[in-house]
């Protein structure tokens, strides 16, 4: 079970002949993911590291029966790759690529309104169901199979959180990095809904950061709908306003998007908030104890 991906997922890598495309196709296969091939226009017919390469995604889907794609094409072409996946009938696209222009993503997001495809990212570490399948760039070894669902806007901060959970014997059902951009596919709420319905997930850890109001909206939803304990951490408590903190979405503007305000809202909605990024496992344990 778990959510989004499992050992049965058949995965294509768009941009497989690029340096990072190949590296991660290979690392995902090493983890046990069923990578059935890749797409790079102009390189169709080749085989690279045992992966068959196709010119178009449609050919790849036809030949391999893939329903999941991992996108690692350069930013100027990434929006096209997502649209190609949606039009080709892919069920889940995980877009790792960072730096896609806003104008391109506005169109992608609008197109996805009328599409059945789920998009994770862009600008994200991807998705992993520990012990079964990894579609992303996260280090597999820090994960452990278990019952905590993890959803995060961040990359390496998610690794930090996961490692703390694993060290505390809190294994994960699935970890989803939804991405740090202002426009992304699945939102916190979309992923929380999936965790809520997943029998393998017993509790959720949510990692947010400054900018926008996605965490607040998620908190309101959790208060009304979530049947499982939720703990959270929000990064950027000490971030100065008006500065873009690395992620395109991480900026406090016009007094909005502050970490302190987000934390207050989360606590009001019954979420256990880790006061420090060193206390993630503790907060998760506390949330689990409170509910039981």
């Amino acid at each position, binding site marked *: 079970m778990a959510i989004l991906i499992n050992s049965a997922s058949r995965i294509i890598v768009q941009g497989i002949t690029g340096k990072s495309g190949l590296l991660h196709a290979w690392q995902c296969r090493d983890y046990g993911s069923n990578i059935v091939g890749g797409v790079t226009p102009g390189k169709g017919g080749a085989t690279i590291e045992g992966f068959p390469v196709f010119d178009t995604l449609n050919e790849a889907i036809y030949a391999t029966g893939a329903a999941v794609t991992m996108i690692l094409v350069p930013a100027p072409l990434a929006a096209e790759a997502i649209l190609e996946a949606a039009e080709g009938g892919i069920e889940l696209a995980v877009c790792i690529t960072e730096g*896609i*222009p806003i104008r391109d993503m506005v169109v992608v997001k609008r197109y996805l309104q009328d599409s059945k495809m789920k998009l994770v990212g862009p600008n994200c570490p991807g998705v992993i169901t520990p012990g079964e399948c990894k579609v992303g760039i996260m280090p597999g070894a820090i994960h452990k199979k278990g019952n905590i669902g993890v959803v995060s806007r*961040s*990359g390496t901060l998610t690794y930090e959180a996961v*490692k703390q959970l694993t060290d505390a014997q809190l294994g994960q059902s699935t970890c989803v990095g939804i991405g740090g951009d*202002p426009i992304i596919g699945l939102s916190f709420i979309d992923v929380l809904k999936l965790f809520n319905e997943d029998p393998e997930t017993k509790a959720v850890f949510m990692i947010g950061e400054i900018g926008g109001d996605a965490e607040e909206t998620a908190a309101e939803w959790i208060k009304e709908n979530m049947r499982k304990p939720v703990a959270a951490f929000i990064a950027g408590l000490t*971030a100065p306003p008006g500065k873009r903190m690395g*992620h395109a979405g991480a900026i406090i503007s016009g*007094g909005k998007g502050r970490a302190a305000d987000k934390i207050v809202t989360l606590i009001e909605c019954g979420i256990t908030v880790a006061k*420090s990024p060193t206390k993630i496992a503790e907060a998760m344990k506390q949330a689990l104890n409170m509910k039981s």
Partner: protein
Amino acid sequence: MNIHEYQAKEILKAYDILVPNGRMVKTVRQTQEAVEEFGRLCVLKAQIYAGGRGKAGGVKKVNGSVHASQAAGDLLKNKLVTVQTGNNGLAVKCLLVEEIIEIEKEFYLSITLDRRTSRYCLIASAQGGMDIEEIARVSPENIHTLYIDPFIGVRSYHARGIAILLGLKGKIVEDCVKLIQNLYKIVLEKDCSSIEINPLALSKAGKLIAMDCKINFDDNALFRHPEYEKMIDVSQLDPMEIQAKKLDLAYIKLNGNIGCMVNGAGLAMATLDVLKEYGGEPANFLDVGGGASREKVAEAFRIILKDRNVKGIFVNIFGGIMRCDIIAQGIIDATTGIAACNLPIVVRMDGSRLVEGKNLLSQSGLKIETVDNLGDGAAKIVQRVIKKRRVIAN
């Protein structure tokens, strides 16, 4: 990416949006010439990468060229501190000299990305001249929004609806329709993350004129606009931030004394939070990115070392796609032969090739301490920096 008001107005002009007659000047002499050309009464506007200029004395009405040269001299000599610049203020390297417009009424108009709907959103108000946040607080009923469907764009009926809500009548309505449609065209063709005209004036002569304009370009789209690079005014940016940008590193200078090098934006923010929690003050935010090379790590280290406030350095790297041995080699490259490196350095690394990375550091002969987790690392560097300060004090 920010640009100056005068540059934003040049873009508006190119899209048939009216702006006051004006010219960018860099000296007192040029100011005098411009004032004589536009008539005795003019306005001088300091060009800086921040708002709040009016209240801070950065916008001056002048009467005649003697008055103008005095005002221009004052503006060009001093740094301007506004509510948006921080305490140090920003250097004023150029002014915009403009004719004075007789104004009937002022409006607010902007297009920006709305994250909730993932669409560009047009915001308009008949309450121009003040911040949109202020308008939202004082009279939210006066704010009109249009969420633009990218498949159909801004049609004339959309724009007409907004013009009517703004209370415009007669021929001006159609002028406003054209203006709004052109504004959206700018957003798309120039890849703006936001564009704001505030105030948009209805002049006594019956024309819609953009009195002030702010444009932000989408940093992710700069590859489509190589010409933007020439528009950057480096006097408005921190020199270290410029250098970091060239290396494709996200660097932001802060006021503390602990230099930080972290991979990933979220972890970098969390690292600053932990340092503060342990009583330390970070000197910077620095995200070396996921796939940084040995050279990039070394450059990042050199940037941190250029900040004279830095009294100690904390490296926090969670190797996912980054290998710990590469990080270690980068640190060694950067610190070898640099005198500043008697500074305490604490390295927390995790992830692939951790043992190799630690070995490299311990064999390097450098005074680098390694720790195994974030909390220990933060505690140690704070302790080292404070101890060092005590030693100096004694």
